[in-house]
């Protein structure tokens, strides 16, 4: 055998050894992966019919969830509402403390939500708002919403449900809209009928503060409980 033939044979056998090593390593990794999948399955197979029946039972009905939460959780939320007189006093000393002490924030958002209570006299009734002069004159006037309720002030002030408790943001948004409808039917409709200038009103309301200068003059609230008397 010549030297060049010997070299070629040596090169070929070394290539075969390398390929064999590669195959053994690949097969080893494959076996370990399959063993892992055997002990810890990647998925379970279920019939579509079974799945559909199950998902029918689990369909998210935002309106009924909102109605149920309104019934069960509202008393707790009302008891947490801060007095507007107190909040105004604190704000006069240091506006930043209001955000820390009474505000509710979602994630890293700069906006915050307030849940407050107050009482005063109705000074004007408009198409979509009514203005109240508070009993504590230092607290100024507030504006209560009478028109369609938009945004997330109610959902995020009362804090019945956190975003992480629902599977996706869509359901969280649907719940916010359903709570707004709940407020419109159970609070705002009766209020519209009773609201007249000069009558006394006691209320609990929600506010979203995006801008410290603009949103406090006057404070705009979505009422979630009201009581009107002469």
């Amino acid at each position, binding site marked *: 055998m010549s030297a060049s033939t010997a070299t070629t044979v040596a090169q070929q056998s070394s290539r075969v050894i390398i390929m064999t090593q590669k195959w053994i390593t690949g097969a080893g990794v494959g076996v370990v992966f399959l063993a892992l999948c055997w002990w810890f*399955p990647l998925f379970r197979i279920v019939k579509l019919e079974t799945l559909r029946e199950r998902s029918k039972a689990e369909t998210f009905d935002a309106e009924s969830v909102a109605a149920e939460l309104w019934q069960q959780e509202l008393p707790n939320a009302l008891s947490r509402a801060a007095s507007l007189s107190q909040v105004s006093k604190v704000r006069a000393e240091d506006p930043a403390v209001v955000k820390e002490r009474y505000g509710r924030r979602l994630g890293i958002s700069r906006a915050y939500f307030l849940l407050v209570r107050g009482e005063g006299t109705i000074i004007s009734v408009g198409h979509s708002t009514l203005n109240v002069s508070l009993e504590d004159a230092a607290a100024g006037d507030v504006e209560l919403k009478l028109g369609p309720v938009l945004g997330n002030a109610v959902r995020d002030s009362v804090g019945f449900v956190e975003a992480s408790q629902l599977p996706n*943001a869509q359901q969280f948004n649907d719940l916010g809209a359903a709570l707004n409808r709940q407020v419109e039917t159970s609070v705002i409709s009766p209020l519209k009928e009773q609201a007249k200038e000069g009558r006394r009103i006691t209320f609990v309301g929600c506010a979203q503060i995006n801008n410290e200068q603009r949103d406090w003059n006057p404070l705009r609230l979505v009422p979630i409980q009201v009581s009107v008397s002469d």
Partner: protein
Amino acid sequence: MRERLAAFQPLLALIIMVAVLSVASETFRTSENGANVLRQISVNLCLSTGMTLVVLSGGIDLSVGSVLALSGAITAGLIRRPLEVPAAGVALEFTVWGAVVAGISAGLLMGLFNGLAVTRFALPPFVATLGTLSIARGLTYLWTGGASTTGLGTAFGWMGTGTWLRLPVPVWISVGVAMLFWLVSRRTRFGRYVYAIGGNERAAVLSGLRVQRVKAWVYVIAGGLAGLAGLLVTARADAADPNAGTGYELDSIAAVVIGGTSLSGGKGSVVGTILGCLIIGVLNNGLVMLQVSPFWQQVFKGVVILVAVAIDRAGGKQD
């Protein structure tokens, strides 16, 4: 000797930054803040490790941010809802582990797509991965319907928020990944091929290296690591945001460049990238601690990247 000194430049820069910020801010030098910085850089470290291999081979991968979002969305979607197969009349209910494997596999597939586009269709890496950036983002929107998926459970959340031996789990994962690929790049034949291809692709071809295959594998690895980074982001936020990872490719490229890896390929290391990630993380954190405006933070970051590239270019001319 000069090359060895150049390798110490990022470390020196990091030491100076940490020293200055420790003096300037008391909060900066607390151990809690140290853990926080490490947690913050863990996602970028995963992305940048893959990016280092791509850049070392003479390429670039602009799709990592979108691939991150796609992997996170697929994992979250499979955890939350079964995958229906109407033709077979069945649905697959994924376990958390199964969803994790599927998410990383999505990253690997997008990486393979990049690899094939660059090697088989001879597209420039910049163009090929720019296309994948858009494709992956579009697929993410299609899969999620544009909405975030939340409520992924504590088992999956542990990956992003848990701690082990007093260090956040994402730190262990990302450092493990970086060390593994440091070994791969320094101690394996594959690693040497990557350097050889990036240093002189023509010479690598003439030497008989399977250049196209190695390059394709590099993109597959980068895709897989982007997928892993997507899982870390999703687990930490307990939500898959279809807009996640936007602009992360730039942070990743910045970390690679600041770490001393040459954009023309063949020069650099994963260790340098770890330092690059730390420099960006410390810079971000320190500027926040010093209450510097976010707009100025962007300016500072840009200046640091330019200086790093200028030093790299100056070194290249001297060589």
